[in-house]
């Protein structure tokens, strides 16, 4: 059966769940698509098995079970998590699976997004039922095939570890793939009851642990292809400033240099080896055009935000009850302003990509949070049709939202086109800190009131800052619609900018600022002030700063009303029972803690990405230095598909959040970020890392995300402990005592 035939038959059937799609070269290929079989050839190497892709599973006669993982592995453990879902119902141990990253195809779209992207802590939530269903359907058809081949009833067959078992005798699945390929697959084979899970909910090593402990996991930086040349780009220190002029002669004459090329983002040196390109690029002194951002310092941003906070009402977001009446009914009212700075993601692998253009076709390798967008950008900037661009996703050396913005793919493509050579582009750390996309700075004013019964009567929040959605659209539309003209894109992006500054609040700007507490009277306002700093998602997005303001004001209000702050939260989260329970569990742990002399406990809780987390930080302060000794983290994320990975994500989010709590700051000077590397943009190191105790609340409900929700509570938890230790309310991040 040829690839084409199978694709056509799929197109004709267009079933809700894809059936057994064919057998080629002796293997079974199974896939699904929630929307039916999407058109187009599947991005699987046909030379190996001759399979039609559009598939999640490929089982060969020698019983190799391959899983094409539709999501990107940036450290969050998604390959292990998704393999566990499919393996659970298929009865194959996830560690026994041969996991490959899927190429581009609509069948691999994220059901939560409608595009092939990874983020928003969505993967386990979005794939929990669909991938289990694929596993169950596949197991069912294998069992039917085995029953026919072995002459036994389906009821007499059990399965385990990739084998059919009949009367105690084991037969590998591979033995039945040819027979299975001729059978109709059920669309909705029954799935296991939770009590029967063998892999879901059990801890075992990550399936990528060996590769990542031996230097053999392949990242984009490791891609090495024949005739590959290395590129270093010099960009304006002020975002958006175009190249005015550059003298290329010195760089051009340096050893190993083959090209010095002007591209849309600046000027690039192409050389035989990276160090040659790097050395030559240092000899370039380009001049840049002036842009408005060039007049902006951090103080400008702060002054503009403060003025807007004071003088502009802004747009109204969530609005319930009567805030004036709510404030009037309060016995105690507090009001305070909170600040959070611009932040860089600083994944340890800087942006990098390899692009090869040859004979009217292209290949691109990079580790990105949207492999379809990567393909689209290469097509757009090379003029090569989408179907002739092969996008190869690698492991991502950290992402945290950063690898959803793909200007490095544009650069590498422009360089491959202009030089006629396969290009390996690598950003430096300085490029990463200074030429990146950032967590938006935010000024937040919170005002809340509590009645004599300890119940919130009023909740008022206002945020000033930039919006990320128009910036995301600016990056994603050219990538997702490579055929769309520049002027159309400019129109759409401009429209979104206007919409979110003048018509409706960009949800990501205020998410988490008003949702958790029960106040009957709530209002959120937003004023957009944008200085043209490039912005994007940053681990937990809006929650990364709204939690600081939201939990901070609750701490202040509880103190003023003389109510225990944890008790206060319990009394005011009745409408969010899961969050309420997480707070209660954390309270029980907190009551048993006996902090050392001079240590103080701070508490905070937050719901984000449908997951509830409470954290207790044990903190001491000496000579104005804040030390976090231990963090206890209680999480309810539904079923913990792999509890050890859930713990790891909570540990990691605490550390990532602590870097922001204690160190993270970027200063604009004349439109350029002053910081450049880890000496002035410090990252938490081992000697500062607290012990982290993670408690996972038992749950039988479907999983919710864990990549981000561990982050939002940590800054306010530490700030609360610092208040207890010093009496100082710190309302600016990073926390600095004076």
């Amino acid at each position, binding site marked *: 059966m040829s690839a084409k035939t199978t694709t056509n038959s799929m197109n004709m059937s267009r079933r809700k769940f894809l059936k057994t799609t064919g057998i080629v070269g002796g293997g079974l290929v199974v896939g699904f698509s929630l929307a039916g079989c999407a058109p187009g050839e599947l991005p699987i190497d046909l030379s190996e098995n001759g399979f039609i892709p559009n598939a999640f599973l490929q089982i060969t006669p020698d019983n190799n079970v391959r899983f094409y993982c539709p999501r990107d592995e940036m450290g969050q453990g998604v390959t292990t998590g998704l393999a566990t879902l499919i393996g659970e119902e298929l009865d194959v141990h996830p560690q026994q699976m041969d996991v490959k990253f899927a190429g581009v195809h609509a069948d691999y779209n994220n059901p939560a997004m409608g595009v092939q992207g990874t983020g928003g802590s969505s993967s386990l939530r979005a794939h929990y039922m669909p991938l289990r269903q694929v596993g169950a359907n596949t197991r069912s058809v294998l069992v039917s095939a085995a029953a026919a081949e072995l002459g036994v009833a389906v009821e007499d067959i059990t399965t385990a570890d990739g084998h059919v078992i009949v009367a105690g005798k084991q037969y590998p699945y591979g033995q039945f793939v040819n027979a299975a390929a001729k059978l109709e697959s059920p669309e909705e084979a029954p799935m296991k009851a939770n009590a029967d899970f063998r892999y879901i909910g059990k801890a075992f*090593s990550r399936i990528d642990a*060996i590769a990542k*402990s031996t230097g*053999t996991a392949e990242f984009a930086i490791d891609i090495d292809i024949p005739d590959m040349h290395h590129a270093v780009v010099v960009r304006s220190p002020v975002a958006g400033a175009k190249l005015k002029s550059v003298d290329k002669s010195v760089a051009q004459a340096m050893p190993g240099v083959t090209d010095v090329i002007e591209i849309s983002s600046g000027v690039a040196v192409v050389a035989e*080896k990276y160090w040659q390109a790097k050395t030559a690029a240092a000899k370039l002194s380009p001049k840049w055009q002036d842009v408005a951002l060039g007049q902006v310092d951090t103080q400008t941003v702060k002054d503009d935000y403060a003025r807007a906070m004071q003088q502009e009402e802004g747009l109204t977001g969530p609005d319930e009850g009567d805030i004036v009446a709510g404030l009037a009914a309060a016995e105690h009212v507090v009001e305070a302003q909170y600040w959070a700075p611009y932040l860089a993601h600083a994944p*340890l692998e*800087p942006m990098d990509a390899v692009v090869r253009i040859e004979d009217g076709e292209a290949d691109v390798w990079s580790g990105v949070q949207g492999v379809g967008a990567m393909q689209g950008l290469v097509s757009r900037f090379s003029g090569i049709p989408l179907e002739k661009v092969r996008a190869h996703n690698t492991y991502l050396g950290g992402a945290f939202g950063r690898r959803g913005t793909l200007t490095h793919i544009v650069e590498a493509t422009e360089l491959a086109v202009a030089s006629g050579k396969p290009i390996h582009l690598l950003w430096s750390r300085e490029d990463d800190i200074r030429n990146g996309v950032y967590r938006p700075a935010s000024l937040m004013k919170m005002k809340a009131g509590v009645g004599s019964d300890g119940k919130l009567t009023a909740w008022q929040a206002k945020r000033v800052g930039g919006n990320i959605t128009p910036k995301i659209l600016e990056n994603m539309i050219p990538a997702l619609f490579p055929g769309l003209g520049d002027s159309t894109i400019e129109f759409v992006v401009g429209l979104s900018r206007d919409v979110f500054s003048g018509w409706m609040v960009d949800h990501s700007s205020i998410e988490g600022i008003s949702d958790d507490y029960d106040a009957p009277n709530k209002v959120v306002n937003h004023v957009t002030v944008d200085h043209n700093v490039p912005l994007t998602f940053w681990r937990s997005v809006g929650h990364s700063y709204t939690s600081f303001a939201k939990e901070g004001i609750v701490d202040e209000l509880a103190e003023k009303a003389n109510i225990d702050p944890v008790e206060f939260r319990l009394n005011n989260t009745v409408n969010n029972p899961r969050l309420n329970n997480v707070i209660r569990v954390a309270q029980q742990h907190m009551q048993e803690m006996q902090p050392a002399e001079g240590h103080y406990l701070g508490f905070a809780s937050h719901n984000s990405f449908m997951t509830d987390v409470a954290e207790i930080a044990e903190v001491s302060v000496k000579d104005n230095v804040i030390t976090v000794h231990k963090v206890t983290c209680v999480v309810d994320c539904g079923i913990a598909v792999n509890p050890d990975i859930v713990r790891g994500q909570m540990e*990691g989010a605490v550390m990532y959040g602590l870097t922001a709590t204690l160190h993270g700051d970027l200063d604009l000077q004349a439109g350029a970020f002053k910081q450049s590397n*880890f000496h002035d943009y410090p990252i938490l190191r*081992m000697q500062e890392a607290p012990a982290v105790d993670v408690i996972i609340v038992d749950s039988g409900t479907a999983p919710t995300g864990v990549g981000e929700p561990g982050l939002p509570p940590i800054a306010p938890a530490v700030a609360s402990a610092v208040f207890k230790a010093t009496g100082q309310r710190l309302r600016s991040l990073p926390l600095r005592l004076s």
Partner: protein
Amino acid sequence: MIEFMLNGVSVRTDDDPNTPLLWVIRDTFKLKGSKFGCGAGLCGACTMHVDGEANRTCILPISAVAGRHVTTIEGLGTPDNLHPLQEEWVALSVPQCGYCQSGQIMSAAALLENNPNPTADEVDAAMSGNICRCGCYVRIKDAILNVSAQKLAYNAMDEVNA
């Protein structure tokens, strides 16, 4: 022409003597396990052993390793023959994104080579040059201390048996 020992094998290169060792290992000798993270000796992703000591090779010119022994992650262990630290890294699922882990393991291996029984503070000090942006520090530390304890136990058993 500079000659040195790379994972026990004599090699030579005519790369510019100022080229950092990291790029010679990666681009010339095509060993990709050691990573670039900062280019300034600040993050440790490029850590290799030079004559048994942990070294930040993104700022170490190859002229400085002439005639010396360089060990990379590829020389420490392989998927089929894991170093005890790598075994423990797998057992504890230490890596998340994994990008920094070659450097972490090389720093840890140099530490245990020189100090088989480090205290927690000594582990902190030895590992303070290695950044993990995913924040796997708790597990890295546990893995090092576990391997140290296992080694001590083996050594004690050896002595008893002797």
